[in-house]
């Protein structure tokens, strides 16, 4: 192949690939917006208080793994204990951190060590002790102390201790809306003829939001630009992406920060995979695969309501750590379940969802990065038209901004969380800045994630958070 023909083929490939990616995102967005409209119309007649007084409401165990959360754990647990729901318990799993979380919890909730007898369905790190409160006001709370084994290991321990048929896995530092469990319960009641094995929810950005007593009091966009651009990213992903996959019955990922699972199926499928850092996605894929292979009818549902609020990285370093881990998690899940790739036995999952994740979620950043590097080389060699490059950059930038504005428009017409005009203006500006401010760094992080995976890196990486009360802490850092 001559250099000229290589350049032509390369340009054509990049052009066709980016057009396909753009079309795919657009199709998903159209499906999402349509589904959201129907969902909101139907939901306007829902009175969630009926669930509060109902014996039919599903019994839920909230699993909250914690690692070095001492500074905020007491408040965060209090927030979980005051949710509006009657049939639930909270299991906090202290994953062998080196702070004083257990002592603080014991003091705050009058905990005392209790004997435990569990069906050890998973291999986990050693369970040191279990604690219950002597105060009946906290009878819903169970605290487990275990040796460090990572988030997946902590969640598996939590599953073994859960006494209810449904488990809601949350990050202990997330803020749940008070009616989160009421909203989550509805699909289980509504589809009582079908087995719902998992329900995912939207995760929203809580940086700079006002939080009092474990509840969200005022929603504001973050003061810093980096987390603000992540709001745009989260809105695109949750409002314009996942809703469509739910509608198509091809949802592969439920956020680790907020996802509910059928305990029995989770156990039968083998629980959380301790060998991956993408344990949230991996479990969903494995549970779905289990149901298909055992020819059982099932459903995975998704709720677009803003029920869970989390703190996103405020520095490029932390963001890079997070995104490298996400890339490794995606690679590990796709590799573990490579059998499903274009396998008609797995229907839409095999023929569309998995290929979409391979080509559009995993490969796109790599192809984009390669394209940018080669383009720079061609420009330096003077063998490519600057005019076309200019057009192409505008083409890509224009699409990125338009798609972000569409996400903001969807948020405005649906949940309308950012009430003040000044808040919304800040987000609009972020939509224009994001493609040049964070995008290239995220491409680099995805590339480095690949390198780390090839090198066999298994650590979570430091995930430093500012804390809702400006408390610095490190979660799941350097956990195996």
């Amino acid at each position: 192949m001559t250099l000229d023909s290589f350049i032509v083929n390369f340009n054509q490939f990049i052009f066709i690939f980016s057009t396909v990616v753009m079309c795919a995102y657009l199709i998903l967005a159209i499906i999402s917006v349509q589904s959201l409209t129907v969902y909101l119309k139907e939901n306007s007649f829902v009175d969630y208080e009926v669930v509060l007084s109902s014996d039919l409401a599903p019994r839920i165990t909230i699993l909250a793994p914690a690692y070095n959360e001492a500074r905020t754990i007491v408040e965060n647990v209090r927030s979980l204990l005051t949710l509006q729901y009657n049939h639930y318990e909270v299991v906090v799993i202290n994953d062998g951190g080196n702070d004083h979380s257990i002592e603080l919890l014991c003091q705050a909730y009058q905990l005392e060590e209790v004997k435990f007898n569990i069906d050890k369905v998973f291999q986990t790190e050693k369970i040191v002790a279990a604690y219950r409160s002597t105060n009946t006001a906290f009878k819903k709370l169970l605290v487990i102390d275990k040796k460090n084994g990572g988030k997946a290991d902590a969640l598996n321990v939590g599953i073994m201790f859960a006494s209810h048929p449904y488990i809601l896995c949350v990050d202990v530092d997330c803020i749940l809306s008070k009616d989160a469990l009421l909203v989550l319960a509805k699909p289980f009641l509504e589809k009582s003829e079908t087995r719902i094995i998992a329900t995912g929810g939207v995760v929203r950005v809580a940086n700079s939001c006002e939080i009092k007593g474990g509840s969200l009091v005022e929603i504001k966009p973050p003061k810093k630009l980096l987390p603000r651009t992540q709001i745009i990213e989260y809105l695109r992903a949750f409002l314009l992406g996942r809703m469509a996959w739910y509608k198509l019955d091809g949802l592969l990922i439920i956020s680790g920060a907020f996802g509910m699972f059928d305990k029995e199926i989770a156990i039968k499928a083998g629980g959380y995979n301790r060998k991956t850092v993408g344990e949230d996605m991996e479990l969903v894929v494995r549970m779905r695969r289990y149901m298909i292979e055992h020819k059982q009818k099932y459903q995975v549902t998704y709720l677009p309501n803003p029920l869970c609020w989390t703190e996103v990285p405020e520095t490029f370093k932390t963001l890079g750590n997070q995104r490298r881990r996400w890339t490794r998690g995606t690679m590990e899940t796709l590799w573990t379940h490579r059998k499903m790739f274009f396998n008609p036995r797995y229907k839409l999952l095999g023929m569309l969802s998995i290929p979409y994740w391979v080509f559009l979620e995993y490969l796109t950043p790599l192809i984009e990065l390669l394209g940018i590097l080669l383009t720079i080389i061609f420009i330096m060699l003077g063998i490519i038209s600057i005019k076309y490059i200019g057009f192409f950059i505008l083409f890509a930038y224009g699409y990125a901004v338009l798609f972000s504005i569409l996400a903001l428009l969807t948020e405005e017409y649906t949940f309308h969380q950012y009430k003040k005009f000044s808040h919304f203006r800040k987000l609009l500006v972020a939509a224009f800045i994001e493609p040049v401010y964070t995008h290239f760094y995220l491409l680099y992080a995805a590339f480095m994630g690949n390198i780390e995976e090839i090198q066999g890196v298994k650590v979570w990486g430091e995930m430093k958070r500012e804390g809702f009360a400006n408390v610095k802490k490190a979660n799941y850092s350097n956990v195996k």
Partner: protein
Amino acid sequence: MWTTFKNLGGLELFLTSAITLYVSLGIVAIVLLFISRSSRNYKEKLEIKYTPAVETVLFSLLFFNKSLEEVLALEEYKSNYKKKTFKKVLLASAFKLHINYSGDFNEKLNEFYRKTKLINVSMAKFHSEDWDQVCTGIRELTQFNVHDIEPELQKYLITKSTNTILQLESILGLIRLRGVEGLSILLNYKKPVNDWVQTNILHAIRHSDRTNVPDFSIFLKSKNESVVVLGLRLIAMFNQGKHSDLINEMFMLNGLGRVKNQAELTLDKLASINLG
């Protein structure tokens, strides 16, 4: 080849068209965003503006012992009653008060609802082509005890619509109008009644007129399994322990399934109530 590629006027045209389209759509989207924000703010301001007048009208009727005629003669009512947003706020406030109060207060509100022709606003919704408007109409009309719509509600439930939310609103509407007796419509109901609908029904019954409670064993004869399950739940709710033998028989005869599970739960509940 590269020269050919460079000279592709089609590509340039495509890219410029796409960029123009993005810019145009972007501008339209931003304009829509601003319009949405402005109209939302305008509506909110208008609703806030009418709230004191609405409160004066309704509080005069309910708490200051003014007659309906006197209330309708109030300046706050006379100067605003033709305005659409005022009517909307008035109806919403009267509806909320009706939910929170009972007895004489509700009688006064029912009369006010008819006399002020707010009933026509609800009727227009009830006869709308949009199912969500119909649902809102059902809620309003049944809350204000408009019994004339009962036949229409039954039609919605049995034949007229396949929309599950509309059907649920029809059942709940019938319960609001007739109390527990409103459930009789389910005796010949053929569609599945899922747990969400049952949760709503049981909740509505807890807050409805519970005089003349029927014998719910009649539901156990239904060929619709979900209606049988509802019957078992109602028997437990109203502690109709006289049916224990029949339920026990059902428990023994039924294979695995929802009826057997619910029969067991109902028997347990009846036993615990009797023991208690």
